[in-house]
Structures are given as structure tokens and as C-alpha cells.
């Protein structure tokens, strides 16, 4: 850690841990409801649990991205945050808005649009809050003594994420328009600009952890985010197959979605190749585990499993079934959850000054979460495929099919328990690191950087 102001990242990461824990609670509520035990229905009906589960995910990932940016940007630009105090204000406001939204869901206060359930008045507050963040980061980049590709890509990813929140607020009475704009936000986030953020954070981690030359890492960063946008922008079409939009989207969405795994495959090869090529033995091996794991699991979850049902002929039957939940869980885990956990694992020793690195509990956290999530994906996949055949192909009634699927949710709960034990181990480690009191390094003049090993 080079600057005192980077310490704010710790509090963003602590927020992540808190929101992630809550997200898991709502996940279990839904899994039990699916398995036939909807005992909490009078207090937490399924739609409240679902909105909370999804929005907590988005909130903790965004908190993670912001924390990552507050840690990485000063480091890359070689200057402290422009407004260090504003970062704390912005975090507190973010948490207040988020918690208000989650509480509101339990009192039927929401917008009821998939993934964008936060009620409209709070939407405006989110925009203001994210703008404060973007301006703070932007000023730091602008006034910094160095402008690296990594920091520019990260900054533009965050800026575009804020801008692309706006189409979701276009008012309309038309369900098709509503769905169309909703995917501008959701798809162009997760299969577009969030991948810029992902690329930026991964590049930073790979440069630090492997010691591979920055020029090489950043060159391939451009190639990979280039492929992401080349396939991902028109790949939005796979959400426009069956919502009342023209049928040319079947062709466009089908072809460009089929290219989307290439970008993720590129990311996986990039991570693996750089990890092997790097000569440096960074002591924080577990951070490299999470970094390379993120590259690989995002390919499996977002790339491969996404491709498995974006072909229009397949999607005609799987659209709106549990097959989507199968893909969704591993995609978000691999691409974004692991990314945030990777930057946290890397940054914590610096932020707190304690070099715990790969303790047994840290290694347990890595393997049990990944094995648990893989098993959850299998359970969702089996339930989803069974649903497709019984309901969509054979025409059985919805509720009759759901009863047949209950046993798979028992399997899901078992897998989720393993996953949760890993998250508990991760949080235990987080707490063991203690408060952010890490030593701030002596600033190094820019010209001498190359001669001094990073960190």
C-alpha cells in the first residue's frame, strides 16, 4: 500500500462480506421454498427473497468494484485519492440506500422489474452516489502522475456502468419496450462494461502477482476486451428473441452469442499463460489462485454454460426455466464474485499489514466454494433440464412438474451448504486480518519505479 487514502478500500470490502452473508441467507430461503418448505412465506414471500438475493449480489459486487478502484487507482496513478473523505461519505450513503431498498422489498415497496427492483426514488440516489464515486476516481486518474492502460480501462468500465444504469429508468407502458431497455442495463453491464472492470482488475492483479511485463499484459487486455464488445454488444440480441421484437434478433443474437465464449476463453488462456510465464514467486499464492480461478470459472460459467442455451433453437425451450438459474449462478460466481474475492485476497495483507497469505482456512475457502458452486450448478442444471422436458416438451402442468423437481433442491441445499462453509472460512480469514492499519510505503519517485520491485 502506497497511500493512506487507499485504506477506504478495506471498508468497502468489509461491506461486501456483510452483504454477501445476507445474500446467502436469502438464497437458502428460496432453495427451501423450492424444496417444498416455504415456511417463511407469510413474512418473506418468494418474490421478496428473490429481489433481496439478486440486489444484494449486485450491491456487494458494486461495493467490491468500488473498493477495488479505490485501492488500485491510487497505486496505478501514483497519487492519493483526490477526495479521501468523500469516499467514506459515498460508502455510507451507498449502504444506507441499499439497506433501505432491501427493507422496502419486505413491505412490497419496489419496481418489480427483474434485477432492477430498487424503487425509483432510490434509483436517483444510486445515480448520485455512483457519480460521486466516478468523479473522485476520475479526478485521481486525471491528476495522477501516470496514466496506465489498466487504470484507464478500469475507469471507463466504471463510468460506462454508471451511464448504462440510465436506460433502465426510461418510463414506458409497453412491456416490450420495458424489457428492451432493461436488458440495455443488465446485459450491457454484465456482458459488456463490467468486463472492462474485470479486465482492468485482472490486469492489475496479473501484473503484480506474476511479474510479467506490463506492456504484454495490457496489450492482451485490449485484445480481450475488444473481443468482449465485438461479441457482447450484439449478443444482447439473445434477450430479444421472444419479447415481441423482430425475428432478425434470432439470427443476430444467435451468431454473436456463439462468439461470446471466445472472449471468455481468451480470458482463461490469458490468466493461465501469464501465471505460468511469470517468473515471480509472489508470496500471496492464494491471491493468484483466485485470480486464475476467476479467469477459468468465468469461461465455464459465463462463456460455456451461457452458450449452452443461447442458441435460439435451444432457448425456445429453456427460456424462463431453471436452466437460466444454472447458468446465472456459475456465471456471476466465476466472473464477478471470484474477481472481487481475488482483489480482496490480494489487497488485505497490504491494507492490514499482516501477511497471513495461504493459511489452511484460506485454501479451504477457495476449494469448498468452487466445488460447492459447481455442485449447485449441476443441481440447477438437472432440475432445469427435467423442467424443460416435462413442462415444455411433454406439456405437464407447472405445479406437477415442480413437485417432481423438489428432490433436486435438496441436492442444491447440500451443495450450497458446502459453498457456504467456504464463504464462512473466507470471512473468518477476513476478520483475522484485523483492522486496516497497514504501513504506508515510502513514496518512490516515478523514474525509479522500474528498478524497485513492486510491493
Amino acid at each position, binding site marked *: 500500500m502506497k497511500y493512506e487514502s487507499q485504506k477506504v478500500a478495506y471498508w468497502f470490502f468489509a461491506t461486501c462480506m456483510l452483504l454477501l452473508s445476507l445474500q446467502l441467507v436469502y438464497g437458502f430461503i428460496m432453495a427451501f421454498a423450492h424444496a417444498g418448505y416455504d415456511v417463511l412465506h407469510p413474512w418473506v414471500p418468494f418474490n421478496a427473497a428473490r429481489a433481496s438475493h439478486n440486489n444484494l449480489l449486485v450491491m456487494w459486487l458494486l461495493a467490491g468494484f468500488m473498493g477495488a478502484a479505490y485501492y488500485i487507482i491510487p497505486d496505478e496513478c501514483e497519487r492519493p485519492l483526490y477526495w479521501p473523505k468523500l469516499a467514506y461519505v459515498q460508502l455510507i450513503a451507498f449502504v444506507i440506500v441499499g439497506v433501505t431498498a432491501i427493507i422496502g422489498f419486505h413491505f412490497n415497496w419496489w419496481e418489480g422489474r427483474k434485477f432492477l427492483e430498487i424503487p425509483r426514488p432510490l434509483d436517483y440516489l444510486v445515480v448520485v452516489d455512483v457519480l460521486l464515486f466516478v468523479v473522485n476516481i476520475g479526478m485521481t486518474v486525471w491528476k495522477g502522475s501516470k496514466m496506465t492502460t489498466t487504470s484507464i480501462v478500469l475507469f471507463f468500465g466504471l463510468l460506462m456502468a454508471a451511464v448504462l444504469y440510465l436506460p433502465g429508468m426510461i418510463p414506458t407502458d409497453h412491456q416490450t419496450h420495458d424489457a428492451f431497455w432493461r436488458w440495455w442495463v443488465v446485459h450491457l453491464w454484465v456482458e459488456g462494461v463490467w468486463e472492462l472492470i474485470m479486465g482492468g482488475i485482472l490486469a492489475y492483479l496479473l501484473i503484480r502477482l506474476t511479474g510479467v511485463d506490463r506492456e504484454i499484459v495490457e496489450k492482451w487486455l485490449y485484445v480481450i476486451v475488444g473481443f468482449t464488445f465485438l461479441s457482447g454488444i450484439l449478443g444482447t440480441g439473445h434477450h430479444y428473441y421472444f*419479447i415481441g421484437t*423482430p425475428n432478425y434478433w434470432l439470427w443476430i443474437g444467435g451468431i454473436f452469442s456463439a462468439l461470446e465464449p471466445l472472449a471468455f476463453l481468451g480470458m482463461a488462456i490469458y490468466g493461465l499463460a501469464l501465471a505460468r510465464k511469470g517468473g515471480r514467486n509472489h508470496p500471496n499464492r492464494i491471491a493468484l489462485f483466485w485470480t486464475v480461478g476467476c479467469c477459468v470459472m468465468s469461461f465455464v460459467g459465463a462463456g460455456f454454460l451461457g452458450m449452452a442455451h443461447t442458441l435460439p433453437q435451444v432457448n425456445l425451450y429453456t427460456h424462463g426455466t431453471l436452466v437460466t438459474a444454472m447458468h446465472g449462478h456459475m456465471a456471476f460466481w466465476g466472473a464477478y464474485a471470484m474477481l472481487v474475492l481475488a482483489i480482496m485476497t490480494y489487497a488485505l495483507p497490504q491494507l492490514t499489514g499482516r501477511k497471513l497469505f495461504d493459511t489452511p482456512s484460506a485454501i479451504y475457502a477457495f476449494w469448498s466454494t468452487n466445488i460447492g458452486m459447481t455442485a449447485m450448478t449441476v443441481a440447477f442444471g438437472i432440475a432445469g433440464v427435467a423442467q424443460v422436458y416435462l413442462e415444455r416438451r411433454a406439456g405437464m402442468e407447472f405445479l406437477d412438474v415442480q413437485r417432481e423437481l423438489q428432490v433436486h433442491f435438496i441436492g442444491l441445499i447440500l451443495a450450497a451448504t458446502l459453498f457456504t462453509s467456504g464463504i464462512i472460512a473466507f470471512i473468518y480469514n477476513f476478520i483475522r486480518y484485523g483492522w486496516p492499519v497497514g504501513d504506508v510505503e515510502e513514496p518512490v519517485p516515478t523514474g525509479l519505479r522500474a528498478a524497485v520491485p513492486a510491493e
Partner: protein
Amino acid sequence: MLSKSAARAFFLSGTLLFSAVFIWLTVDTFQRIPAQTNSDELTESVARGKQIWEENNCMGCHTLLGEGAYYAPELTRVYDRRGPAFIAQMLRDPEAVYPGQRRMVKYDFSEAQIDDMNAFFQWIGRMDLNGFPPEPTIGLAGAAPIPIPGGERPEIFSQVCTACHALGGIGGAIGPALDFVGDRFDRGYLMRWITDPQAVKPGTTMPKLGLTQEQRNEVVIFLSKQREGGL
């Protein structure tokens, strides 16, 4: 070998080009949506229905146009499949319609709001969705239909009764199958039964259906023809 500036040029030009194409397709799509979705039939009642749909986060359990959660039935074609009478009864008291089954929140909608929901579902159901939802094609759905006595199923029977009961292999498995039900009960009993099940058999899970006298007559006549000798 690829240089960093060439990689940057690839990224920038590709992103700009495909963003431009995407925006152009968006403009084109918005010009075609009205014809494909009967935008001219989007009445104020439909708009109010959409509002109710969103204010109560119906998508948090159901799917519509295949979008939403996977906890409750897909509702894109619900107006055709179940009809306005069933939808209304379900919205008035979901647990009375599906007792002991997966639960839905009881919302206390006014009758006017229920009409708006029906208008919304009717409008959604008439959209051209490029073949979604697909017709089932395998198993019983793909085989020749099992012959039943009594002629064609009345529409109200297919919409309401089939939600729980099967006849000739078509329908739900929540209530007992109705094959040859005419051999077991006479018209008077069937009429009393579907008018007020609790009065006939207190504690039964069979719900009050809220059908009109005419609809009940149609169903009772059809059911009484379900006799083994009737084929």
C-alpha cells in the same frame, strides 16, 4: 507480432462499429414493435395492469414473456389457457384455488384492478413472440388424443377444471382424474359440488370457482356425459 497500439485500435474500432450497428438496430426494432405487439390495443386498462404487475413484483415468482423468476407459472398465454374467470378467482384468493400447494401472496385487489390485470394478460397473450412459448410435442402431448365421450371439451372446462384435474390424460394431477366421473355422480350432485364444495364435503380442498350459472351448466352437462358406455 501484434503491437499494443494495434491492439488498442482493434478494441476502439470494433467497439465503435458494433455500438453503431446496435443503435441502428434498436431504432429499427422500435419501428417494428407496434405491428408485432398490437400497440394500438394498449389501452389505459392494460397500462394500469402493467403498473399493478410491477408494483407487486409479480416477476419475483412468475415469468412473463419468459422473463422473471422460476417459482410460479409462466403467464404469457395465461389469458388463453385459464381465461378471465380463473385469473380473477386466483387473484381474489390464491390459496383457495390451490389449497395446500405452493403459496402465492393474497393481494386484496379491487375488482377493477382484477379487470386491469385481465386486460394486461389479454394484450400480452396476443403478441407475436417468434414462436414462444412452444407447443409441447412429446409424450401424451405428441400422441393421438385419448378419445373421451361427450364431444369437444367446453372452453371453460379446459381453462378452469384442467388446472387441477386430468381428463383423457390432459390436465393437472392436484385433484383426481375426471375420467368416467358421470358414472359416479349425477347432475344434481355435480351441480351442488361445483357451486359450493364446502357445503357438500366440509374441509375439501376443492375451491369455489366463481363460475356463472351458464358456465356451471355447461360443465355439469359435459361431466355427466363422461360415462364408460358413452364412447
